[in-house]
Every structure is written in C-alpha cells, then in structure tokens.
C-alpha cells in the first residue's frame, strides 16, 4: 500500500468501525461454533446409522468452520486490527502485520485481542 496525497481520518469513527468488525467476528465465530456442534451430533448419528452422509457432513462442517466462516472472521478481525492500529497512530500503516497491532494498538480498548491474529488464523 502506498501513502496518499489526501489524508483525512477521524480516529474515533475508525475505532467504532473496529468495534463493529470485532463484534461481527465474534458473532460469526460463536454462531458457527454452535451450528457446527449441532451438525457434529447429527453427523455422528448418521455415521452410526451406516449413512455415508455422516462422515461427509462432519468433514464439511469442519471445513466450513475453519476455512470459510473462519476465513471470513479472520479477514474481518485482521482488517479490524489494521484499522485499530491506524486509528491509534493517526497515520496509515504501510507495513502492517499482526505484531504491529500488538505493538501499537490501544489494547485496553480491545482487551483480549493481543496477538489474536498472530498465528491463530489461517493465512490466505
């Protein structure tokens, strides 16, 4: 990313964007976890019933949780952390990574997120 000739930022509005993104992230994670747990139970019953659908369903749900829903929440969280860092520094952060968030963001404002995107999420 490159810098810009025009630069306007209202850090508080950016922080509020971050809050929304983190909330979306946790909401999707939580609800995905719930549907996948329910799916695993049905998949087990199907597997016990000799149905080929059982193991396939279990695999599909896990894939959904990790790769697709997980991919989305990873991106939402990551972008949130980027914006949180930008807002805190009041400048654009050119070489952003998860460590930059840990180093520069207001972690008091986002408790529990330290290193959240370091290694817990798949890279894409």
């Amino acid at each position, binding site marked *: 990313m490159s810098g*810009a000739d025009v630069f306007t930022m*209202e850090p508080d509005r950016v922080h509020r964007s971050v809050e*929304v993104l983190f909330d979306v992230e946790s909401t999707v994670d939580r*609800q995905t976890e719930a549907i996948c747990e329910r799916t695993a139970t049905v998949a087990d019953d199907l597997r016990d019933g000799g149905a*080929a659908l059982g193991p396939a*369903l279990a695999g599909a749900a896990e894939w959904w949780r990790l790769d697709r829903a997980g991919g989305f929440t990873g991106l939402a969280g990551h*972008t949130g952390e*980027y914006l949180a860092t930008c807002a805190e520094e009041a400048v654009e952060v050119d070489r952003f990574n998860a460590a930059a968030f840990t180093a520069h963001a207001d972690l008091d404002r986002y408790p529990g997120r330290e290193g959240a995107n370091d290694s817990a999420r798949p890279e894409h």
Partner: protein
Amino acid sequence: MSEMTWQQLRDLDCGPVRDLGEAWKAHAEAMAEQTERVRADVIEGHLGPDHFESDTADLVREQLGLTADRFDDDLSDYATVRMATTLMETADALEAEQRELGELIPLIESHGLEIEGGPGGYDVGMTGDLKWSIARLDPPQWLCDRVGVSKPDGVLDPARLESLFNAADLIASASGLADQYGDWLRAIMSRAHDADDEAAAAMSAMRENPPGLPPRLGASYDDLVDDYRSGLSGEAAEELEAIAGGDAELSPEQVSQWWEGLSEAEREALIERHPEWVGPVDGIPVDDRDTANRAWLDERIEALEPGEETRDDLIRLRDRITDADGSPASSGETGQPYCLLGFGTEGSGQAIVSIGDPDAADNVNTYVPGTGGGLAGATGLLDRAESMAFDADRYGTGEETATVMWMGYDAPDDLLEAADDKWAREGSEGLESFTRGLRATGEGDPAELTLTGHSYGSTMVGTAASTEGVEADNVVFVGSPGVGTDTASALGVDEDDVWATRNDQDVIRYGMVHGTDPTSAEFGGNEFRSDSPRENSEWWRFWEAPIGNHSSYWDEENEISRRNQSLIVTGQGSGVR
C-alpha cells in the same frame, strides 16, 4: 459408499436431519445480517469517506466489500445450497423410502416370509413356519387364495388332499411373492443408498477447489488483490463447468438455487460464452437451456464437415425445431414452442426436445423411446411425441401439457442389444436427474409428471425408477419387454399410478427378458386397453383380408391406447378403460 442396512434405514430418525437443514438455512440468513453490518455500519457508516479518506481508505473499503461479498457467496453456495438443501433433500428421500419399508416389512411378516442373508441381505424367503404349514398340507389362507384352493379345515378335510396335489403351486406362489418383496426391498435400498451417496458426494465435492479468499491488508495486498479480482470474473464459469462435468455433485434442485443466485448479467454471459455447459444441465430453467442448446447446436453443425452423417442428423433436428427465418418454431399441431433441452453425438446420439415449456406446464409427459432411437431417429421419434402432444391437448381439460421426447440415453440398436439391461442401467442416473430437474425448475404449483416408456424405453423408465428413483406422479409402460423389476411396488410410485398396455400385435419377440410383464395382474399395476385394430372382426376375416397380414406385422399404437395415455397424462385417470 453407503452401507446402510434396511434395519438402519428403518430406525434412522430423519427429523433431526431435516431440522439441521433448516437450521443451516436460518444460520445462513443470520450470517448474512453480519455481512450487511459490515457494509452498512462500517463501509458506508463509520468508515465512510466523510470520516476516513485516502487511497488506503479506499483500499480498506474495497477489501471489506470483497470480504463481505465472498462470505455472502459462500453462505449461498455452501451453507444454503450445499448444507441446507442437501440435508433437507436427503431427509425427504430417506423418509420416502422409510415409508415404503413401513409398508413392506409388515407385508413380509404377515405372509410368513422373512428377509434372509443377515443385515446386508435383501432376499426374501419363506420362514420355516410357512414351509412347515405347506408340508403338513395346512397352508395359510392368503396362500390358498393366491393359488385358488380351499383352506383345509381339520385333519380329515378333503381340502388337505387338494393341498397335496397343489403343493408345488403353493410353494411356487409363495416363492414368487417372496421374490417380488425381495425386488421391492432391493429397490428401496438402492434408492436409499443412491440418496445417501449423492448427499455425501455433494458434501465432499464442496471442499474440492473452493474459490480463494480476498487477500489480507498488508505489504503484498496490491499484488494479491489483482489476482483475486481476475479470479472472480471467471468464477461462475468455473462453477458451471464443474456442474456440467458432474464434478460439483449438485442435485438439480441445488443447481436451480445456484442459477437463481447468479445475477441476470452473469446468467446471460454464461449462456452466450458457454452454451455447451448451460444447455444440458438439469436444474437450469428450460428457457435458458433452450437458448443455449440452440446456439450450441449451430456451433456443432458449423464444426462438422459437410456430408458427415452426424451433421446431417443435427441439421434435421435443427430444421424441425426452427422456422425458416431462424427463430424457434412452434408445433403445427398444438401451437406450443419446441424447446431443445439437450442433444449429443456419443454412441447412437441423444436428443431431448419438448413440445411446450415444461416449466410453465400443468402436466408434463416425458416420453422415453426404445430400441433403434438415437439421434438419427430423433425427428421420427419427435413425430410420436407430437402426436402425444396433440392427443393431450385434445383429450385434456384445457390445462397446458408439455410433451418431452427424452432420448437422453444411449439406446440399444437392435433386438440383440435390447436383451441387455445395461443401456437402461447406464441411462438411469440421467433420467432421474432429468425428472428432478423438471420438478426443480417448474413454476407455480407442482406439475403432474408422467413418464411414458415405449418398448425398451419402458425398461429404461422402470430401471431408473427402481434403482435411482424418479420424480413422477404416473408411469406408463407401452409394449414393454419388462421394466427391470417384477413388481409395481418397487417403482417408488403409488401402484395405482402405474399403468401398462400392450397391443395384441405388440409381440416383443425377445419376450419378457427384463422382468414380469407389467400388464399382468401379478405385476400389480393397472392395465389399460389398447385394443388391437381389428378386434371386432370375426377371427377368420383377419386372415382372409390381405391387409390383415399387413396389419399384423406392425406394432400399432391405436386410438384407444392413445386416448387412455392422454387421460393419464392430463390427470383424468378415472376415465381410462
């Protein structure tokens, strides 16, 4: 592969499977609210240009937009089309077979029969008690009724002697019934395994080659996002190619949902750029398939050398369904448009043409021709379909009836080949898919669907119905050499809606090589009249007139048969004679 035993199928609770499907659907809707929050509250809200403006701000907004779009597509393609629909379709399919089992098992038990061969066995045989009752000349009442002997009443009853004389018939009758129940059980399990395997394949296939996710913001974002954007433009085409090639493992209902999920521009682009993938896919609406197939037919004709036999066949097909000015033609008999639903040149060649739009019709009659069809005979077979359309219009109630000629399988070329059931087995999945596609894309109230098989086409219909399952309210067998099963019960359609007929002249020389005669009482469906053309003649006049010999040579489908078929197709079965 599905290893479900009949006991496991019987005991499976499909309710939670369907409920889970509903839950995934609701989950997808709830998740879509979250992507909407990203768009409304972040991209257009707090992070709008009024509050954050720079090149990077534009990139962030774009990246969030791509992320939300991707998840919306995933929610549609995977959570809804794959997970929810697969679970609900599977629950419906397995419950339908459970209902059949619920009907069959008590019948087996109440007749002193049993399922043999352990959990994986589907043969039905006589219990020791039944064998013993026959051996001691005291067969049960139902068996006496079947054979037509009196039930012995006491040791000294003379009816015991009658049972002794008829012991072989009693055993044969009981074995015959056991075989029919065995056929029925195998059909149930075949369809259940098919539904289970299809569902498993759909679940597994979605993990194969999924589209990538948008890149993360960071140093390499600019480079990666260009690749991602260029991938997006070809994504729908890649998905369609996988669907058309069978790699996507989507059911016609799922294809229908996927197609509906595309934008109008995407659909138009796919029809224009890839008609060869759009045209044959069951689950894409008839109108779009017709447009694509006509374009692809033109391309195929252009690509073949003049004088090639296949090219001539394709030109004949095109001429039949196209007006002189190149626009789609309508049937001269009914005024209904011709719709080209598929064609191919593999083997004997294939052609699927409808007279009338099945998606908009109240009744759809799918006619499956038999031996010696193929692409070369397509226009001749279309003549017969055209007569069916004419008859349905004439005998109907004023509702719209579409008549489809489904030559979608590689049919046997001659009588020798027609003794083999492999053509029917190989075509079964295609016929199942076609009928499910009709159901998936039908508009308004569900149409009355009829499958009419002529000659070997009846073997095709029966085999597909008993092994894969078909969407049909009625099945009609005309001039059948057997339908791949010995009992109407195995077809997955109410026995009251199974019809069969055969003219006196309709002597299928290779006999009933594919199962019990479907016109017989033993088969368990309905027989309807198909009077021989000279039935009222005195018998000697038949031989006296030279034309009698002429008529007797041909398999004729006469007026009464055509009338009866039309009444079935148009939902007036009560008038069938």
